[in-house]
């Protein structure tokens, strides 16, 4: 009976996720070319090429993986901590809380194209509002936000934070509502202040939510594409060209489908390992927390 209810979803999942994924796996072990009718099985050659220095894709692929890594490391802490703090603030009984929640969530509904165009104006080196403000408060007036390192990273993380943190905030907020208020009362009776009860009650209470958020945020950051595609064009040089950007370029525009499929699976393997580690670490704490 359960399968009957699951069937519609399973059908969609199989058609749009499983089947393409399997087809991609097949492509990655062939010399797939859109210009030939027959494709040949080449075993793991496409994968081996990715790990062989000097192959046409090796340098660029790992450079793009490095750029992805930088972005994940730089963005995830902010994308978790800032929404958490905002959610805690919104969880207080304040006037207009719903309004603020809506405002913080609003950017998330924008498409990346809109975000790119709007921030392109704001971050322009010479005529952007941001540099204008920076100049007004006495900082240099020509910070190359979208043109040169390290500023491009600051801009990309900042824009991503502005754009997507609303989602995490709302999820944290839902988690906060689920924490029993009696725990806070008990903590207050024991003499715990705001900070102490945050660490002793709020954070442990949010652990399941935290696991979900860190996992999805790491994955989302590792799949970053639109921001650097639109704002920095992958520049300077190829410094902000992420793995997804490089894979899309190789597969979709240069028709190197087979190596691109192999790269996708290497990226997938990396993300699977990272997610597993994350899961393992947080689950252990979760279980310990329950025993106590």
């Amino acid at each position, binding site marked *: 009976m359960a399968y009957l209810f699951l069937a519609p979803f399973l059908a969609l999942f199989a058609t749009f996720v499983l089947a393409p994924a399997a087809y991609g796996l097949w492509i990655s072990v062939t010399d797939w*070319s*859109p*210009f*030939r*009718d027959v494709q040949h099985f080449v075993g793991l050659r496409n994968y081996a090429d990715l790990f062989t220095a000097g192959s*046409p894709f090796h340098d660029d692929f790992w450079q793009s993986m490095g750029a992805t890594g930088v972005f994940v490391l730089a963005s995830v802490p902010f994308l978790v901590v800032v929404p958490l703090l905002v959610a805690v603030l919104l969880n207080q009984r304040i006037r207009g809380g719903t309004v603020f929640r809506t405002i913080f969530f609003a950017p998330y509904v924008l498409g990346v194209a809109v975000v790119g165009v709007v921030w*392109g104006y704001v*971050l*322009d*080196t*010479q*005529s*952007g509002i941001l540099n204008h403000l920076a100049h007004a408060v006495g900082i240099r007036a*020509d910070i*190359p*936000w*979208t*043109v*040169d390192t390290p500023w491009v990273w600051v801009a990309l993380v900042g824009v991503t934070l502005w754009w997507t943190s609303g989602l995490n905030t709302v999820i944290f907020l839902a988690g906060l509502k689920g924490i029993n208020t009696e725990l806070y009362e008990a903590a207050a009776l024991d003499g715990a202040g705001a900070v102490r009860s945050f660490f002793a009650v709020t954070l442990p209470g949010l652990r399941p939510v935290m696991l979900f958020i860190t996992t999805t945020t790491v994955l989302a950051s590792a799949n970053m594409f639109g921001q650097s*595609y639109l704002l920095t*064009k992958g*520049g*300077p*040089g*190829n410094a902000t060209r992420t793995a997804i950007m490089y894979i*899309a*370029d190789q*597969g*979709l*525009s*240069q*028709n*190197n*489908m087979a190596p691109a499929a192999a790269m996708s699976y290497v990226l997938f393997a990396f993300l699977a390992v990272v997610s597993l580690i994350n899961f393992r670490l947080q689950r252990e704490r979760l279980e310990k927390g329950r025993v106590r």
Partner: protein
Amino acid sequence: MRKSVTRGMGAGLAVVVGLALAACSGSGSAKAPGGGAVTGNGGYNGPKVEITFWHGWTGGAAPTLVPQMIDKFNAAHPNIVVKAVPQEWGDIASKLPLAIKAGKGPDVAVLHGDDLATYAAQGLLLKADDIVHTLGYSASSFPPGVFDKGNYKGAQYAVPWSVTPLGLYVNKTVAAKGGVNDVPTDKASYEAALKSLKSAGVQGEWVDGYVFTGTFEFESLLWQFGGDLYNKDVSQATFNSPAGVQALTWMKSLIDNGYSPANVAQDGNIKALLAGQTAFNWNGVWQTTNSAFKGLDWTAAAVPQIGTQKAVWSSSTHWVFPANKGQDPNKTAAAATFVKWMNDNSAGWAQTGELPAANTVRNDPSLVATYPNLKAFIAELDYAHYETVSPGINEANALITTAINEALTGKATPQAALDEAKQKADQILQQNRSKYGA
């Protein structure tokens, strides 16, 4: 990144349909059994057909202009109905190859010059030698060099429609601040103008490291210094030649000399020109229709000659006849009639900020009289350079922009940046040869 996934191979098909077409239109006005024909003057006398036309003109004046032209054509041709399907260029790139292979593509389409060879190599286009011959077109019907862009491996696949060269836009109010009242035309006068603008506190030309427009400026300069992007059979990149290094070094020197700010973001330069912050901008003829110029005292001129010879970058668009599976020769014949009529009536196209390719139309004095801003651009066509004809060439071209970006942001010297791009471009050219069997 604007090209897209294509599958399968439609070779042979093109040949078959091409032969059928040749049978229809080979001798000027001959009528094939059961088929229509294009007559020598571009008329069509076959059975009534409806033809579809794909184009990417979704912005500016085009969305009102194109339906007007098509209505006029349909009214004048009782046995042809043209149905236009406008869509974004990017959508055309991703849909057209698949549609043609499935026999659901249009009967006529417009493509950019740098895409023609990619389509032709995949057998997606009909060989149009006979159509071109019947319509009376030859290389001399168009600006020098444009017609050949539709020629791939000895066959003609396209009829030129428009050309879009780069030019020098001048904000005259800003230029006058630096005492610059004449538009500079060569290296000496251009650098002198930049220098006196600098002493008046104006950075005269803002150089950027993006396709729009740093890449176009670099390519113009490369040709001016006597270089070229690729060797003759497009097996090797040559943009790292001494000419290329000179070109990029000169662009970098504008920053080093303080004539340009560093780290100009994409489109920062045209914004600055419009905002009255800079005097010069190398930009495409399409900017003449930019409504933000209203109220400014501005002019457009030929790009100055910085190198040893006159040269300028230009793009082009072309008519093509897709080799749909089961293509009806009558429809292709009707499409040829449509193409000829459109080219003959393309004077109004100038209001979209593109130059009509047909010499008869463009050289008519009334065109410049109506659109005086186009005069300088039309004069440039004698020495303009167009796209490289080679399947998949855009992927190699993308590396040029990366090199310019690295050099202008100081990540590498012009020589080192171009050398690295050349090496990668050569790899891509080699991949393209095996990919497209070119």
